[in-house]
């Protein structure tokens, strides 16, 4: 009952938020200098009249408030407009890229969480031991690297020196598409994403575990004579997981936004690359649809995180 009311309230707020963000997106995109027509300036053959014709085809000759109305109504009714440079509905252009992004981001996120939590647990079991400091340093080492630079290092090393992994893309040029083929293409971008994000989870897990282990109820548990193992995994872990869940929620929000830099370096045909290219050409329908989708993703992920919180932490109620 309380949960239902809470959800309803949150959903209304979320919708309002999405509307505000969508409006803000429109303003930001139209504030960026230049427009889709500027790409045609590169070709001197295209006459000013021709450029006007193109603007008309794009619907950019209409007053801005009319464009805004078309945009907002379209976004909430599922008509996301037609891409200028794909000549296809923006929704289908985006939908084609979603699987590639999920294929990269989901395993990488799972791997990051698993290894991160593992590192954190190992470290927190024996804080300030050699192993703890070693793992922390290792996580910091990769965290400090720019993702694209690590990507190039991995590429140079595994592709140019070892010749063991393919250079770019998601599948081989021909005969590609098998599971092993895609996996071999996936390995490097996934590894670079995982390594760079590792510290987020391992350090968080470690510090929250250590914090929990100092709590009174742990002392109580020790006093009851429970084994250290039981205390650690049953009593401490559950509470220490909370910040990690928040972090996971934030990362799930970024799942679809893709890793723009990593996708660029590895030419991974996902949403990150699409975002990058669309911003370059000012393909408004694609940019706005992507931003719209990202905001929905992040707002939803936050909502879900809050709900999960309630189940993990009995102290939180949905009133």
């Amino acid at each position: 009952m309380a949960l239902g009311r809470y959800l309803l309230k949150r959903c209304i707020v979320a919708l309002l938020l999405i509307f505000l963000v969508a409006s803000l997106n429109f303003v930001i995109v139209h504030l960026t200098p230049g427009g889709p027509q500027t790409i045609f300036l590169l070709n001197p053959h295209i006459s000013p009249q021709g450029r006007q014709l193109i603007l008309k085809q794009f619907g950019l000759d209409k007053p801005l408030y009319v464009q805004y109305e078309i945009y907002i109504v379209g976004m909430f009714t599922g008509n996301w407009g037609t891409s200028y440079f794909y000549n296809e509905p923006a929704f289908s252009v985006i939908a084609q890229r979603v699987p590639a992004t999920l294929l990269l981001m989901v395993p990488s996120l799972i791997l990051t969480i698993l290894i991160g939590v593992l590192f954190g647990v190992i470290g927190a079991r024996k804080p300030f031991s050699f192993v703890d400091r070693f793992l922390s340093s290792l996580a910091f080492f990769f965290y400090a690297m720019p993702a694209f630079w690590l990507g190039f290092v991995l590429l140079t090393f595994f592709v140019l020196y070892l010749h063991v992994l393919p250079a770019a893309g998601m599948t081989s040029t021909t005969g590609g598409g098998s599971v092993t083929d895609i996996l071999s293409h996936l390995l490097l971008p996934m590894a670079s994403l995982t390594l760079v994000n590792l510290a987020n989870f391992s350090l968080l897990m470690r510090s929250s575990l250590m914090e929990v282990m100092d709590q009174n109820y742990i002392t109580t548990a020790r006093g009851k004579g429970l084994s250290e193992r039981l205390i650690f995994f049953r009593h401490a872990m559950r509470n220490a997981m909370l910040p990690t869940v928040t972090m996971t929620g934030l990362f799930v929000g970024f799942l679809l936004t893709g890793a723009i830099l990593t996708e660029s370096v590895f030419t991974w045909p996902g949403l990150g690359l699409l975002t990058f290219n669309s911003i370059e050409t000012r393909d408004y329908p694609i940019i706005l649809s992507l931003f719209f989708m990202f905001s929905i993703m992040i707002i939803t992920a936050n909502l879900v995180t809050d709900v999960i919180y309630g189940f993990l932490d009995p102290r939180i109620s949905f009133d």
Partner: protein
Amino acid sequence: VRDKLVALMVALLFVVAAVPLGSQHSQISHSAATTAGSNVLVIGDTTAPDTTDLNPIKIITTYYMAETYSSMIGWDSQGNLVPLLAQSWSVSASGLNYTFNLRPNLEWSDGQPLNSSDVAFTFNLITEQSPLWYYLFSAIQVPNSSTVTGESLAPGSITTPNATQIDFNLLTPASTFLIYAGGQPIYPEHYYASQNLTANNPNLSTMVGSGPFIPTSYTPGTELDMTANPHYFGGAPHLSGVIFKYFTTSASAEIALESGAIDLLQGVPPPDVSTVAKTPGIVIGTEEDQSNIYLIFNMYPELADNTTNPVSNILVREAIAYALDLPGILNASFGSSQYYKLANQIEVPNMYYNGGPIQNTTIPNPAYPQNVTYAESLLKLAGYPNGFTLSLIYPSGGIASAGTAVTLKMVQLMQSELSQLGITLNLISDDSTDYNNVVFNANPPKTWNLVLSVISESPDGDVAPFYMVSSLGGNSGAGGFNAGGYNVTAFNNLVLEEENTTGAGRVALFQQIDGYIYQQLPVLEIYYEIQIVAWSNQFQGFELGLGNPWHDYWGSLKMQSLANVSYVGSATSTTSSSSSSPSTTSSSSSSMTTSSSMVTSSLVTSTSTSTSMTTSVVTSTSSITSTSSTTSSSSSTLLIAGAIVVVIIVIAAVAALMMRRRPGGSGPAASNPTT
């Protein structure tokens, strides 16, 4: 002890992870050809086409369709017109009637006949539906408010007396009609007539063409697949297909080339050439393309913010021209004189006029030899003895394909040379969309004094004067290409006269135009771009050079010539270069007699770093490619792998040991010291 054990285990894990990777090396072949089926050429590019580029009426980047659709006339590397779909053509003495005769028995890739009605269909399609390209054929068009473009073909302007003959009847003479109409790719009527190309792109899985390769599938931003056309009029291509792979950064593309994932890379940045050339089995070719890089002077006396614009004064423009040591600046920026060609204030170094280069000798060479004292006296005369401040806008991604580093060095050297005159040059970099907006789209008077810009010239030489410095092709106003706003009636008339002149008189008009630009300096031309192409010596037959004016070239690689490219593998490479590019070699020897040659082709191999104007033989040592080289180096690469892993572990371990001093205290991530 247990801690140490865990650390050891983690270290072992890394080593173990590296070992199976290292041992698999032999399964991966160096050549993309072997992985992609030996008869497929994989080409790398850093700019992916939009899907609209595969739509005949919406193309912006033209070379993919130039591969798919043949035109009636092409150009050889010396600028001679050569027959493609048309076997002959003629122009009437009045310059108003053009006749093209197609080859007999031409076929589309689906076996349907290609005839004159397809040609008539094409010009009708472009005229009525292509906002981007209808403009080229204004001489046969009349206004019509019911079409997308607002134009339609003038009645009787195109007639097809029989299946192979097409007659064009122009309303006014147009000097460029022959090359634009002849160079227009011809589209299949039976395939496109029923399609609504404004609303939908053609379906690639059923696409029909007349060029050597036809697109079969495209994953936007990633890969474009093309298959050979068995009905190609020049005979079935040797390759079974061509694949374009797209990269966001040239560094990724270079890694792909060096690893053999791609076979050809167009537009290698000059600073990276030496690294790429070191890779065994890679051939480097350079070729001038038609990009002219130049400085635009803002011609308005006041800028948008009402400040005085000194460069609107011809004396100041001359002072700047004489103050710059352009050869020195370019040599220092590119690192070698191989990668640019000095422009010397001539629109096109060799104008191609009705087949054959014509050298313009009316401009002194160099046009403005560096003379700082003379430049200083010009500034004094102009009333600026103490100098002034100017702004220079340049694209942050680099000008044309020079790359960021080369471009930055170029403008910085200009900055330092102008500072000798007391001119402070503020360098402003803008991303490409911003740049186009500020430079071309903004209303005059603009906000800048100088802009580093590029214009793609057609080999005929009509583009630059018309669009760059006259107010004829899109005025100096918003959206015009004439960004500086140079607008002089006498000059406009001269250009108009050239546009409407067919016959030998055009050459004299071009020389007058060049002379005008030399004296008035509305733009300072800097260099012509040299494209650098790198490819695997397992393929031969590439032809670098000019394409037809409708961009049947990609930088410098002639798209239709890919029909002659074949896979030779590594074994037969001793014979590779002798036949690799017959036209570039023959043309370079002949054009070297003129001082500025349009075609300066050279082949550099990984073993012979010297550039040679004749063919250089790819030696067999370089062509025994990676299969052997990787085997011999496998142990060393494994060692390097191990070494790197060890280094990382040592770094982490050292860091761990250094943090040792504070056990139990507030460590790096201990957020809750209980007090």
